[in-house]
């Protein structure tokens, strides 16, 4: 696509918007890490040179309009069903690169069966799982990944989420890594450039799991929702680091390339 950018003469490009990302400014809130996640996926699609055979399965949540932000074919899925829709697409067109982009309600609440069974079947698809511990689009209700004590509109003050009423947060990577058909399972965070770089490497491996025919690749990205957390964007990144990472440890839980993978978490291989 023609992007008429001013480039300094003789300089090399350090960063420009990836081809796979459209020019449309997103509707996400200022500081929302959805934008970072979208960007990383687009960068990976460009680097793997698969943009023109990629199909996005958009889900329901703040990212419901994701098909406006990626320069790829897309199909909108009902809430939670993206892995099933992706299965239909990938089995029909195995040469396509098919990925789902889902939030914590879509994947860990209503869609739990679909992601587990897509992994069980070893579907050659990639899932980008955005975990911001809250339901963003609908105005800040509890998510399956909401922390104990965290205030949301359905786990209100003064107690926030109470285990005796609402249970405790669910750890998706730990569950999925036990499934044989899952080829790559990793959890990363988007709170600082170093973690963002690790996240990108994991996203690339999750796509390679599909492209090289190994099975399902999933990357859980710890993300912020500063508006529903009622914080500034910068404070939200700090809250993620202090509160979410201890509950959702970062690392690679399953990597088809590593023998004995799936029995634990490897921090060393997080890159």
């Amino acid at each position, binding site marked *: 696509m023609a992007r008429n950018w001013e480039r300094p003469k003789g300089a090399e490009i350090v960063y420009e918007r990836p081809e796979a990302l459209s020019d449309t400014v997103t509707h996400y809130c200022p500081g929302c890490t959805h934008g970072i996640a979208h960007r990383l996926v687009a960068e990976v699609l460009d680097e793997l040179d698969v943009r023109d055979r990629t199909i996005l399965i958009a889900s329901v949540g703040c990212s419901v309009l994701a098909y406006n932000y990626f320069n790829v074919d*897309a199909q909108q899925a009902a809430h939670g069903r993206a892995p099933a829709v992706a299965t239909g697409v990938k089995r029909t067109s195995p040469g396509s690169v098919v990925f789902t982009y889902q939030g914590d309600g879509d994947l860990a609440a209503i869609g739990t069966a679909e992601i587990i069974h897509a992994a069980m079947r070893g579907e050659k698809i990639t899932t980008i799982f955005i975990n911001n511990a809250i339901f963003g689009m609908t105005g800040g209700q509890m998510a399956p990944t909401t922390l104990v004590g965290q205030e949301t509109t359905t786990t209100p003050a003064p107690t926030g989420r109470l285990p005796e009423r609402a249970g405790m947060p669910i750890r998706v990577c730990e569950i999925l890594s036990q499934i044989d058909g899952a080829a790559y399972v990793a959890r990363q965070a988007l709170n600082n450039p170093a973690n963002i770089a690790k996240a990108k490497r994991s996203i690339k491996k999750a796509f390679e799991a599909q492209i090289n025919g190994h099975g399902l690749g999933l990357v859980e990205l710890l993300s912020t929702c500063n508006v529903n957390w009622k914080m500034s964007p910068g404070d939200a990144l700090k809250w993620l680091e202090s509160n979410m990472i201890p509950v959702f440890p970062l690392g690679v839980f399953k990597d088809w390339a590593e023998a004995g993978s799936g029995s634990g978490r490897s921090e060393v291989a997080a890159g």
Partner: protein
Amino acid sequence: MVLGRKVLMKGNEALAEAAVRAGCRFFAGYPITPQNEIPEYLSHRLPEVGGTFIQAESELAAINMVYGAGGAGARAMTSSSSPGVSLKQEGISYMAAAEVPGVIVNMVRGGPGLGGIQPAQSDYYQATRGGGHGDYRTVVFGPATVQEAVDVMGQAFALADKYRMPVVILGDGMIGQMMEPVILPEPVDPATLPLKTWITRGAKDRNPNVINSLYLDPEKCEALNLRLQAKYQEITATQQMAEIAYPGSQYYVVAYGTTARICRMAVTEARANGLAVGLIRPITLWPFPTDSFEKVMDDAKGFLTVEMSLGQMVDDVRLAVNGRTPVYFYGRAGGMVPSAEEVLIEIEKMTRGGGR
């Protein structure tokens, strides 16, 4: 198989074979009585033709797989029975709105709730009124014999592709389980079908295709609805199918599917007793064959609707008749099958000016 040779087949299996011959290359389903032979048959038949068979984790997942496969260009099908078809309503609504083709087979059983496994026709409303949310319809076929089921399967896929919509085939446990002689159609090679330009195969050298049903702007949402309605109006004008036995009669029994076969026996008996009774047998339940009612209205004095339900298609009969003659109803529920004797009693009541 030799073309034109009759083979004895169980209904569910004949339907499945007919789907493959119609070019179906993707099936996802979940076991539920009384249609299990359909996924079982396709689990070995589809791989033979390079197709995909998936036993999905639920009927809900299955319809969403069909939605995806249809969006990527395949002739895709799912099958289930009443409780499972309830689960599929969300997906069918999405297919209708996003204009994605596919075929859904419902072998109706007694309901509501978990119900029974005996045949019924109590999903007529669900099938013909757009059983999921929103203002949409699906073409609905109500075949009466295994041969007819085989024949409508090809039409179902053709209409689904032509109009880009889901199509429902409403059967029941009798059709699914009975064995009848059938002539199977000549196979269609999906590679010879017209190319679909709107599908998701990768945006190479073109703008991305987006298959979507989200329309946050109400003006655009209304425009979608009007576009769908225009499609449905064209289908209503051109795709009605019905059989009229003994046109020119004074009274008619109206029934579809296996109930119509029972009613035909009662009609034959009634005519032998001197009653001027005919049979109107809708084959498309949506579009409802109102044209057939117009054809017979001049001489008609009454219509008796017989269903394996407590009255669903009778609403459409009343709408078609539009107050011009009485409309009577007789039904059995919960998996009970009416006998020809019971129907004959109701026919006689109708001709005497009474009846329910």
